[in-house]
Structures are given as C-alpha cells and as structure tokens.
C-alpha cells in the first residue's frame, strides 16, 4: 500500500527534481496560548490571497495555555483540502514535542526551528533551518512581556521567505487578522520582517517546495463551519436561541450573537428581534428551545456529544409532543469526555434514535461550510414542517477550522412555517384536532399559544394522548398515534435533502460517506483512479432518513465502502437498519477514529487492502 505511493512520488520528483510547486502540507508545532493561532492564520490567509487552494486544521488541546498544539496548512494546486497525512514542511517551536515531531518526517523534509531545540541531535537527514528566535524578537519587541506573543510571528517571515510567499499578501493578511488594532499589527509585522530578513541573509534555500501565485481562489471566502451555520440560522429567521458552552460548539452560538447584534436589531426601536440565553445546562437549553418552538418561535441550540446525551429526554418529548426544534451537534470524540478538542462522527447512531421508546429523528449531514449555511435553513424549515426536532450533524473539523468556499447565496425560498392555524382559520373550520392526520402525511395542524379563539387551546404532553391531545392509555389510541408518527417519518424521507451521487455507471466498487469525510473521499477517488485504475462510484448522503436512491446506489455496486469517522461504523449500521438483507451484504467499512480529520491516503489504502490489490 504505502510502497505504491512512494514509487509514484519518486517518479514525480524525477520529472521536476528540485521544485514542488503549490503542493505541500506545512505543520506548525507550538504551545497553546502563545499567539501561534494568529501566526498560522496569517500564513493560511496569505497563501489563500495568492490564489492557491488552501486549508488549515488546528489540532489543539483541551487547555488554555501551556500544552502542545499543532496547526496544519495544506496548499494544493489541485484543490484537495482534506487533511494530508504526510508532513512536507515542519515548523518546530515546542521543546516538549520536537523529538516526536521530527521522528515521523520523511528524509529531506525541511524543518524551521528555534535553534535552541537543536534538531540535528535527532536526525541528520533533514533540511535544517535553525532560527535564533530570542535574538530576533528582542530588538523588534522591547516590551519583554509581549515577546512571547510576538515571537511566533517570526516564523511567518521565515516561512514566507523560504517558500516564496508574497510579503505584501502577508502584510494584508496580518492587518486583516488584527483588524483595528493598528499598533499590534505594526509590532507583529516588524517581527515578520525580522524573520524574513534573517532567512534572506542566513538560510539559503535547500528544499524543493515553493508557493507561486495562481488564480484558484478568486472571489472565494474563508470561514469556519460554525460561523457559516450561525449565518444560516440568522437568515433562517431564528428568534430564540438557548445554549450551554461546550467545545466545539460554543463558537456557533457566540458568532451568532455577534451577527444578530449587528443585523437583527430593529432599526427604529433599537430592540432585538431575537432572544439568546445562555442556559444553566444542556437540559435547560433544549427545554427552552422546546418551549419556544411550542409557542411558535424558530428556536435552536448547539452542542456536542455530552450535551446530546443530556438532551435525550427532552428530544423524546419533542418527538412525541411534536414540537419543532433545531439542534446543532458539533461532534467531537467520545465516549464520555473523550477527546474534547478532536473531531469525530461518533454521534450518528445514538442521535438518530435519541431518547427512550420508539423514536427517530431527521439528521442533516453538512460536509462543507456552504452546507452549514444552507442546511441551517433547511433544518428550520424541516423542523416546522415536520413538527419535530431536527439535528444538524456537523463536527469539530468543519465547525472550528477555516474552509474556502464560494460566497453564500442569498436565500430565495420563503420560510416554510408548517401547518399553523390562526384564529381566522379556526373560525372557518370551527375547531381542530391537534394530532389528527388530516392530510395523510402524518402531520397534524397546530395552534400557537395566544391564539384568540376558544377552540385554539390544546394540552401538549409527553404522556399518551389521542387526536385531541387528551390523555389516553388505550392500546388502540397509542398504536394509531405511533403509526401516524411512522407515516410522518415517510414524509420526512421525501422532504430531507437527497444524496449526491457521482459516477453512476455501477459495477465495481462504490464509496458512501457523509459530512466531512467527503473531502478525503473525493481525493481518494482520484488516488484510486491514478494508482489502481479504478473508477469508483460515490454516494454522499446528506440526510437521514435515507431515500431510495441510496439503496439503488448500493445495489448498483458489487461492494460499497462506507467511509466514516468512528470506530463502530455507525453510518453503516444505520443503513443496515433500513436496507434489505441482500443489500447490506454488499457493505464494507472504512473507519477512521483517531481524532484527526480523515485523510485520503487512509481511505485509499484501506480499500486497496480489503480488495486485495496489494
């Protein structure tokens, strides 16, 4: 498996022995709380501004200051933005991890490092770029207290010089990063220049990597998934938000607060068209959402796995009393506290059937920041149309990292508020039955509290109830209600976003994935073609319940690899619950669950191994 890849790289290298242009991954190893995030984002943005497709992954600890953190920047002329397993260029700043950091590097990998770390003691086959950080930072930053934060800007200048990043773009990116803090920007840029000048004078280029201007990012934006989701919520017309801080979802609520304060204050009265509450815990957060949804508001919360577990009881109430709610799950590694700052798709199975009794919930799987935005809007429409909790299953990789995207389109579809009867409607109808299936789609009509009509009121409850919402323990009433909810599930199947299917010719192998696995999968499809001559089909599911196209895709392929980021093949298990046994026999899994975003090489190698190609 790995052998094939090395051979290929060598062939490429022979064709262009000294220059690899716009195709590398840079890893920066630092200590958190040292301002390195700013430095890394400046590098990321400068490369983006040079028109080179780029992605950044922050691998950080659950800690505020003092523990190791890594940031990976991948530049790819071909547009691959999944994490790359191999490190092509290392910036080593952390004495605690330096030995480990350099051990895994391929020979001749360039390493920029603090000269005190003396990387040469560990390896003698690397391209070494020692930099005297302390000497360089002192004259630039006379204030000793600030040096710790400014120091990391020096490597930005060094890397810019070595790789050929345009300094004008670095300055532009840096000023954008510091926004109105001009003094801080000036100080930091001086540090960048110091690094650049040092490299210019003392570090002759000895590696083969270069970055050159291209034109592949024009008009694009850089945004984190959580910010994109927040924007989607705002344009979906969210009015009540209740949340409890938890990594990696907090930034969704916090970004939403800042957007709403800017764009959702009534210009005349200066009053808010929204309410955002930091709740006492996740139970209360969802309780408020359920209360607000029952009273007619577009309401949401955002959380991560531990919060999802706590919300289980209320989710069952929302399902059974039929109350709209939107819940963002920014998945992180479990079980329990798990790895709270690492990414996973480990909540799929438990969330699909969250709560006790027979329950099933629509799940949306955004794979891009664009879908975080659009699926936020889909989620509110679905929740209100279906009168049920709807989950948006993002993850830490998508939510907290910066991704390139086309700018988001302004929504053209009006808000879909579902079946709500007004006092006027009630006057015409003479009354209503809250849980009767009038339209045959399993969805009843509801009224909102405050509706001025004597027939408007009904009693929402989590206990057994009949069509009129009156308490009932009768067996036939219970069964009738549960069967109607099952009918509603079939309506959900028609309403949720369908799969995206590519390469539908069939035969051979197929790949099925959801969410952020997409980026590794599309790169893996390319690898499979180049390395093994195999053209695999690809089905990206965007929602649960799955529709018929998913089953058709599986039937069209001899075997379908379900690629996902958890240990137990949760997406695969969910498929097995819905598919015919002869179809499930065609399913294989590629599972990636070490907390790092999935990469293409892992997918390709796993498929090749299971197919017996090597």
């Amino acid at each position, binding site marked *: 498996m790995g052998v094939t890849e090395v051979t290929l790289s060598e062939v490429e290298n022979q064709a262009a022995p000294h220059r690899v242009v716009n195709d590398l991954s840079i890893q920066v190893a630092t200590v958190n709380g040292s301002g390195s995030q700013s430095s890394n984002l400046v590098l990321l943005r400068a490369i983006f501004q040079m028109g080179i497709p780029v992605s950044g992954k922050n691998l950080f600890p659950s800690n505020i200051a003092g523990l190791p953190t890594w940031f990976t920047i991948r530049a790819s002329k071909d547009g691959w933005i999944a994490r790359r397993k191999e490190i092509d260029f290392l910036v080593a700043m952390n004495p605690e991890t330096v030995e480990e950091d350099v051990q895994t590097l391929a020979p001749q990998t360039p390493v920029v490092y603090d000269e005190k770390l003396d990387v040469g003691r560990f390896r003698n086959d690397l391209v070494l770029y020692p930099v005297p950080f302390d000497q360089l930072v002192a004259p630039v930053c006379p204030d000793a207290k600030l040096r710790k934060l400014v120091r990391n800007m020096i490597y930005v200048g060094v890397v810019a010089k070595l790789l050929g990043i345009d300094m004008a773009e670095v300055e532009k990116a840096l000023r954008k990063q510091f926004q109105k803090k001009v003094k801080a920007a000036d100080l930091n840029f001086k540090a960048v220049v110091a690094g650049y000048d040092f490299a210019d004078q003392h570090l002759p280029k000895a590696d083969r990597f270069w970055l050159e201007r291209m034109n592949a990012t024009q*008009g694009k*934006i*850089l*945004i984190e998934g959580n910010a994109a989701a927040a*924007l989607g919520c*705002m*344009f*979906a*017309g*969210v*009015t*009540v938000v*209740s949340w409890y801080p938890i990594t990696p979802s907090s930034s969704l609520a916090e970004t939403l607060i800042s957007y709403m304060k800017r*764009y959702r204050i*009534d210009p005349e*009265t200066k*009053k*808010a*068209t*929204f*309410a955002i*509450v930091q*709740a006492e*815990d996740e*139970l*209360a*957060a969802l*309780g*408020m*959402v*359920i*209360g*607000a*949804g*029952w*009273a*007619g*508001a577009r309401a949401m919360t955002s959380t991560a796995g531990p919060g999802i577990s706590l919300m289980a*009881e*209320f989710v069952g*109430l929302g399902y059974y009393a039929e109350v709209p709610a939107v819940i963002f799950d920014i998945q992180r590694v479990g079980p329990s506290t798990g790895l709270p700052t690492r990414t996973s798709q480990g909540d799929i199975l438990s969330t699909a059937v969250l709560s006790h009794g027979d329950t099933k919930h629509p799940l949306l799987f955004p794979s891009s920041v664009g879908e975080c935005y659009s699926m936020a809007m889909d989620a509110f429409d679905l929740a209100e149309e279906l009168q049920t909790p709807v989950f948006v299953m993002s993850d830490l990789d998508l939510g907290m990292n910066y991704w390139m995207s086309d*700018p*988001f389109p*302004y*929504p053209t579809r009006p808000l879909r508020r579902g079946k709500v009867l007004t006092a006027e409607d009630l006057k015409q109808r003479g009354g209503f039955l809250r849980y009767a299936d009038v339209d045959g789609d399993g969805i009843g009509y509801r009224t*909102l*509290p*405050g*509706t001025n009509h004597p*027939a*408007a*009121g*009904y*009693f*929402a*409850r*989590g*206990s057994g109830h009949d069509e009129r919402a*009156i*308490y009932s323990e009768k067996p036939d009433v219970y069964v009738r209600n549960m069967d109607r909810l099952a009918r509603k599930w079939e309506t959900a199947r028609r309403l949720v976003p369908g799969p995206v299917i590519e390469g539908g010719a069939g035969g051979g192998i197929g790949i099925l994935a959801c969410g952020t696995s997409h980026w590794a999968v599309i790169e893996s499809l390319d690898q499979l073609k180049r390395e093994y001559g195999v053209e695999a089909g690809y089905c990206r599911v965007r929602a649960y319940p799955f529709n018929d196209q998913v089953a058709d895709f599986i039937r069209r392929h001899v075997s379908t690899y379900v690629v996902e980021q958890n240990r137990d093949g949760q997406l695969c298990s969910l498929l097995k619950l819905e598919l015919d046994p002869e179809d499930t026999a065609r399913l294989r899994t590629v599972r990636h669950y070490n907390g790092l975003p999935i990469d293409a090489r892992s997918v390709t190698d796993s498929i090749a191994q299971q197919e017996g190609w090597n």
Partner: protein
Amino acid sequence: MATTTAVPPAPPRRVNRIGLEQAAYKGNKSTLCAGCGHNAISERIIEAFYEMGVEPHRVIKLSGIGCSSKSPAYFMRTSHGFNAVHGRMPSVATGAMLANRHLIAIGVSGDGDTASIGIGQFVHLMRRNLPIIYIIEDNGCYGLTKGQFSATADIGSVLKTGVVNDLPPIDTCALAIQLGATYVARSFSGDKRQLLALLEGAIAHRGTAMLDVISPCVTFNDHEGSTKSYSYVKDHDEPLGDLSFVPFFEDITVDYDPGTTKEITLHDGSRLLLKKLGEDYDPTNKVEALRVLTESHERGEVVTGLFYVNTQRPDFLQLMNLVDEPLATLPESRVRPPQAALDEVMESLR
C-alpha cells in the same frame, strides 16, 4: 297536565369584567384523589383568573411530572397547556415566554418536581425573575409513586410505613427570596381567602411569583406524625398578617387605622393590603423575610403569607430588550436580514 306554572326568574348571570362566566375558567374533571389539596388549589386558580378578568387565550399552563403536574388539565380548559418532563418545566416556560412575551404563564409543580429533580431549573428560574406564577403544590412526598419522602419533608416527619425523615427540608421560599424571585409566599390549600388573595396578587405582579402551597396528600401523608397533614398545618399555621387584595379595576377605598396595615401597589395598579396581626412585618425587606422563615423553622411553625415582594427589579423579558411583538410571529421581513447584510458579511470574509 294542563296547569301552567310560573317559570322562576333565572338567577342573574354573573360575569367578570371581560364578560365571561366562571365556567369559562374551568377545566376537565380532576382524576386526583378525593380531598387532595391540589383540587382546592385548582379551584382558587379558577377563581383568581376569573376575578381578575384574564383572557384565557393569553394564559399558558405548564407543569412537570407528578400529581401536581396533572392539575393544569383541571383548570382553564381553553388555554394552551404543556405537561413537560420531570423537574424541567421552568425551561419550557422560559422558552415559551421568550417566544411570546404577551402570554401569562402559570406553572404548577410539586415538591418532588421542584426541590429534587428540578432544583437546578428552579433556582435559575428564580434568578432570572421570568414573569410567571410558579406554584409548588407541596405535600412533602411523592404521591404518584406511592408516598416516598420529598426534599421538603420536615425533620422527624414520619411516613405511613414508619420511616422517619432525618434530613432537613429545603425551604423553597427562602431559596426563592435569596435567588431573586420578586413575589414569594407560602400558603395552605385549606386557606381559601389567603390563597385567593395571593394568587390575585401574583396575577397583578410582573416577575417571578413563587407560591409554595402546603397541599396535604390525603392518601400518603395525612396521618399522625406527618408535618404536612391537614390537622398539623391547621394547628401550626401562623399567618404573617391578614391579607386582602384590591384589583386595579375596582375603585374601592379601604379605611384602616394608620400603623395597622401595610399597602403594596403592584405592577398593574392593584393593591395588596397586609393587616398586622402580631409583630410589624415589612414584606419589601429581604433580610427580614429570611429571618422570619429561619425563626419559624426553629419554632416548628408553618408561617404563611406574603414573605417578600419587589416591584422594582426588571423581569427577564425586560432585560432581553425584545421588540414589542411576539418573536414567534414576526414576519419574514423582520427576521431575515436583507441581501446587503449578507453581502457585507461575505465581503469581510474574502
């Protein structure tokens, strides 16, 4: 028979200030035990909302789980109701009130629902001072699961099975006062007059009105040795004063000797008159309220009445600076910012 009898004149139809009869405030038939204190509380709720002339469609009834929490079905049939999950009604009420600030919320909980499983949400509700009437139907035990002690049971109180409670009770009134509720009272389901006045005052108040109403469980906690039985509470009830309520829409002047009565004007202009029985009591003094509660515990008394009222503290919805209209029904044009807003954000991300 060909005789004609004179039809007796129909009794005059009694209606409230919005033209509704008391029947319009009734609920379904109670399924609680005969003699349950909760039924008496439901009756007082019906009376209070009728007397105050509240439009039933503006009222939302919320509850958690337990015998108490069933009772919203037994009053105001035409109002919307929500029987939520155990101990978590406060969050549901909070969400509903955020969605529509014009609603009038009445939450009914029990001592198990509030003081044990729901204590977390209870304290945060009090702290937020959400506009809601929050009633604890307090019988010191879990009725629906057959009489286990709750966290409001007094030390030394005895179960029917002979089990003695050896943990101190949580005083929900003291907690509520300390945490920021702005209308805090204790009453007894058997004291019709006081409970009605407190409920009417709660309707007139804007903020969290927390009423702990001792409501004996006739089936599991009304025996000798229980401190939440009818006879025990009757014997140990020490009212803080004689309470009467004058609604804002009744132009009544009440004469009283200076120094004997304290008058409190509530948000809607209604007045509560507290006629002194024993020592002077100032229900606007938080420290005094906590002192009285602590001392009454030491004396083994059940002090009832309005412990604390604060008409100055802003409620939670005021703090949210909400637009006047309900958030729930704002039109799309008010909740979806224009294209220019999206363009501005996109530009900042390039």
